[in-house]
C-alpha cells in the first residue's frame, strides 16, 4: 500500500489550507522510523553541499538586527496615557523568544543574498519584523482575554492585572500602531500581504470555536486552524520581506512555504509540549488546551486508539474528570509521537523549500531553526 501523504503545498496565492489526506494512519505509524531516518539523512546531505558554511546559532546571526527590536516597538507605541503605555509595553520586555522576528530577519538576509549577494537588511524589512511581532502580541493580549488566562511567559497576563476592558483596548492599540507602521513602509503589496494575517488570526480564533464530528474533517479543521492562528503570520511576513528583497515570484513562494511549514511545525510542537512539559518550563499552565476544550494533535491521534475519547472531544472536555482522563489517554497512546513525527515532516518540507535559495549562513540558520523547533522544550 502506498503511503499517500499529500504534502503538495498549496500556493500562497491560494487560500493556504493545508489538507492532509490520511488514508491510512496505521501505515503512517509503521513508517515512522523510516521517515525519521530519511529526513535526518537529508539534512546531513544538505550541510555537506554547503561545506564552507559553519554551523551558526541562528539567534546569534540575527542578534545585531534584533538588538533594539523591543525598544523600537515601544517607540511605535506613542500613547499619551501612562497606564495605557505601560500595558502596551508590558510584553515587549525582551523576555519573549523573539522567534518570529528572528525568522523574518534571517529570511530577509537569505533573500537579499539570493538576489544580489547583499547581506544588509533593508529598513523596510526590519519594519516587517517589528510589525509581525506587534501583530502577534496584540493577538496574544486578546487571546488571553478570550481564554481568561492568568499567566503568560512566566508573569501575570494583562487582563489579570488591569482588567479585561483595558486589556482589549491595549490589544486594539498595538494593532493600530502596527497598522500605522505598515502604512509607512509605503508599499501597498506589503500592506495587503500583512493585512491578510490580521484576518487569518481572527478567522483562526473562530475556527477554534467550532468542532467537527467526522474524524478526518477534524484533522483538516485542526490544521487549517493551526495555519490561520500561527503559521499565517510567519508565512506572510517571510513573503513580505522576500518581496522587498527580491523581485522573483519564485523566491516569494519559497519564503512563504518555508514560513508556512515552520509555523505549522512550531504549533504542533507547542501542542505536544502542553502534554509533555511541566508548568515551570513552559511559562503557562499545562493541559491548558484541554481545559479550554481544545482537541489538538496528540488528542486527535490518541482518539484513533481510544474511541471513547470521541464523546469527550465533542463535549469539549466539559464534564468533571474529562481533562484528566483525556490526558491519561493521550500519554498512554502514541499521540505525542505521531504529532512530533508530523512536525518533523513539516520541518522537512520547510528545509526542502529553503534549500532552493542560494547558500548562505542565513539559509543554513533557517534550516537549523527547523531543528530547533523540533527540539524545544518551552
Amino acid at each position, binding site marked *: 500500500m502506498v503511503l499517500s501523504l499529500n504534502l503538495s503545498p498549496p500556493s500562497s496565492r491560494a*487560500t493556504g489550507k493545508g489538507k492532509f489526506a490520511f488514508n491510512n494512519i496505521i501505515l503512517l505509524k509503521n513508517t515512522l522510523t523510516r521517515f525519521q531516518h530519511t529526513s535526518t539523512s537529508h539534512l546531513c546531505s544538505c550541510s555537506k553541499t554547503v561545506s564552507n558554511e559553519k554551523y551558526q546559532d541562528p539567534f546569534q546571526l540575527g542578534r545585531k538586527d534584533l538588538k533594539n527590536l523591543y525598544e523600537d516597538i515601544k517607540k511605535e507605541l506613542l*500613547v*499619551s*496615557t501612562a*497606564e*495605557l503605555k505601560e500595558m502596551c509595553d508590558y510584553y515587549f520586555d525582551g523576555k519573549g523568544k523573539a522567534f518570529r522576528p528572528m525568522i523574518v530577519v534571517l529570511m530577509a538576509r537569505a533573500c537579499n543574498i539570493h538576489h544580489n549577494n547583499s547581506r544588509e537588511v533593508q529598513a523596510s524589512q526590519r519594519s516587517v519584523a517589528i510589525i509581525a511581532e506587534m501583530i502577534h502580541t496584540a493577538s496574544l493580549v*486578546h487571546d488571553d*482575554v*478570550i481564554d*481568561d488566562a492568568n499567566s503568560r511567559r512566566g508573569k501575570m497576563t494583562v487582563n489579570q492585572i488591569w*482588567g*479585561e*476592558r*483595558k486589556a*482589549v*483596548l491595549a490589544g*486594539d*492599540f498595538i*494593532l*493600530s*500602531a502596527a*497598522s*500605522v507602521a*505598515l*502604512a*509607512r*513602509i*509605503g*508599499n*501597498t503589496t506589503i*500592506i*495587503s500581504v500583512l*493585512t*491578510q494575517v*490580521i*484576518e487569518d*488570526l*481572527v*478567522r483562526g*480564533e*473562530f475556527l477554534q*470555536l467550532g468542532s467537527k464530528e467526522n474524524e478526518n474533517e477534524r484533522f483538516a479543521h485542526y490544521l487549517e486552524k493551526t495555519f490561520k492562528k500561527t503559521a499565517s503570520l510567519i508565512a506572510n511576513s517571510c513573503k513580505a520581506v522576500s518581496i522587498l528583497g527580491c523581485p522573483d515570484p519564485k523566491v516569494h513562494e519559497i519564503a512563504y512555504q518555508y514560513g508556512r511549514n515552520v509555523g505549522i511545525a512550531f504549533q504542533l510542537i507547542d501542542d505536544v509540549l502542553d502534554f509533555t512539559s511541566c508548568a515551570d518550563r513552559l511559562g503557562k499552565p499545562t493541559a491548558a488546551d484541554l481545559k479550554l476544550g481544545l482537541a489538538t494533535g496528540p488528542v486527535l491521534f490518541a482518539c484513533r486508539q481510544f474511541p471513547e475519547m470521541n464523546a469527550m472531544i465533542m463535549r469539549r472536555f466539559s464534564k468533571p474528570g474529562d481533562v484528566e482522563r483525556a490526558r491519561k489517554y493521550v500519554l498512554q497512546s502514541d499521540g505525542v509521537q505521531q504529532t512530533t513525527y508530523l512536525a518533523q515532516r513539516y520541518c522537512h518540507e520547510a528545509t526542502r523549500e529553503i534549500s532552493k535559495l542560494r547558500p548562505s549562513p542565513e539559509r543554513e540558520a533557517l534550516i537549523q531553526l527547523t531543528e530547533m523547533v523540533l527540539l524545544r522544550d518551552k
Partner: protein
Amino acid sequence: MPGGGGGGGGPPLPSPSQAPTFISSLISRFTGGFVYDSRNNLQMRGLVVLLISKAAGPSTEELSFQHNMVSGIYSSQRSLAEITELIHTAFLVHRGIVNIGELKSCDGPLKDMQFGNKMAVLSGDFLLANACTSLAQLQNTKVVELISSAIGDLVQGIYYENSKSPEENCLTDDISISTWKEQVFLSHSALLAKSCQAAMELAKHNAEIQDMAFQYGKHMSMSHKLHSDLQPFVKESSSDTMAFSLNSAPAVLHQEFLGREAWIKQIREAQGRGNIMDYKKLQEAIKAGKGVTSAIDLCRCHGNSALAALESFPSSEARAALANIVYAVTRFP
C-alpha cells in the same frame, strides 16, 4: 477568502447599482428635515463620508479615473464609508466588555459573563479585521495610515472614558474644558474627521480641501457630542430626570465656573444618605449656574466652524444636506 469589505456585521449600505436612488432619497430626507433618533449614536458616520465625497466632487487633477464614479461618488469612497462604520461598530462592541474581577453575584453566572466577553472580543476583532482588509484593498498607503491612526485615537478616547470609575463615589475628575475637548475629540471626532479627510485623499483632492473636510468632520461631531450631553438639561417638562454623566460638558463647565470645592460640595449634597445620587437635585444645581448656557454656546461655536469649512465646497444638494446636519445638532428648544 473572498475580498470585499462587507464580510459580515457591516451596515446595510447599498450595492453600487442601488446607490444613486438611495443617496438621492437620503439627501432629500436631510434637506427636508432632520430626524434625530438616538442620544449617543451618530449613526450616520458612513453617510457623512458619502455626502462629503459627493459634495467635493471629482478633483481637477485626475480626470481619467472619473469613470469610476457612481452618482458622484467613487467606489473607493463608498468602501471608505463602510470601513468607517465597521470601525465604529467594532468599538461599540468592544466597549461592552466587562471586568470579570468586578462582577458581583447579582450580575449573574460568571460563565455567562465570560462567554459574553469572549463573543464581544471576537466580534469586535472580526469587524476590525474586515476594516483592515478593506483598507488594504484601497491601495492607498496614506489612507491606511490616516485611518489606522484614527483607530489609535479612538482607543485612547475610550480609555479616558473608562478611567472614570463609577465606583469612586461618583466623583468626577478634575478636568478643565480644554482637556475635555481633547478627550472628546479622540473618542467622538477623530474617526469621522480623518475619514472625511481620507475620502478627499481618495479622490486626489489637494491638502486644503482635505483639511476642510477634516474640519467639518471634527466640528460637526463635537457639536453632536455637546448636543447629546445637553439633552438632560434642555428638555422641558420631563417628569423623569435623565441620569447624566458628571463628566458631560455642562457639568465640566459648571465646575469651571463654580470652582472644584463648591462643585464637590454640591455633589455630596445631592448624594444625601445612602450614597444614591439625586440627579434631579444636581441637575437643578447645574441649571442654576452657567454650565448649560456655556455648553450651548460652545456647541454653536463648533457648529459655525463646521459651516465655515463647508464654504470651501461648491454649492450642491450634498453640501446643503451636510449643513442641515449641523443645524440639527445645534438646535435647542
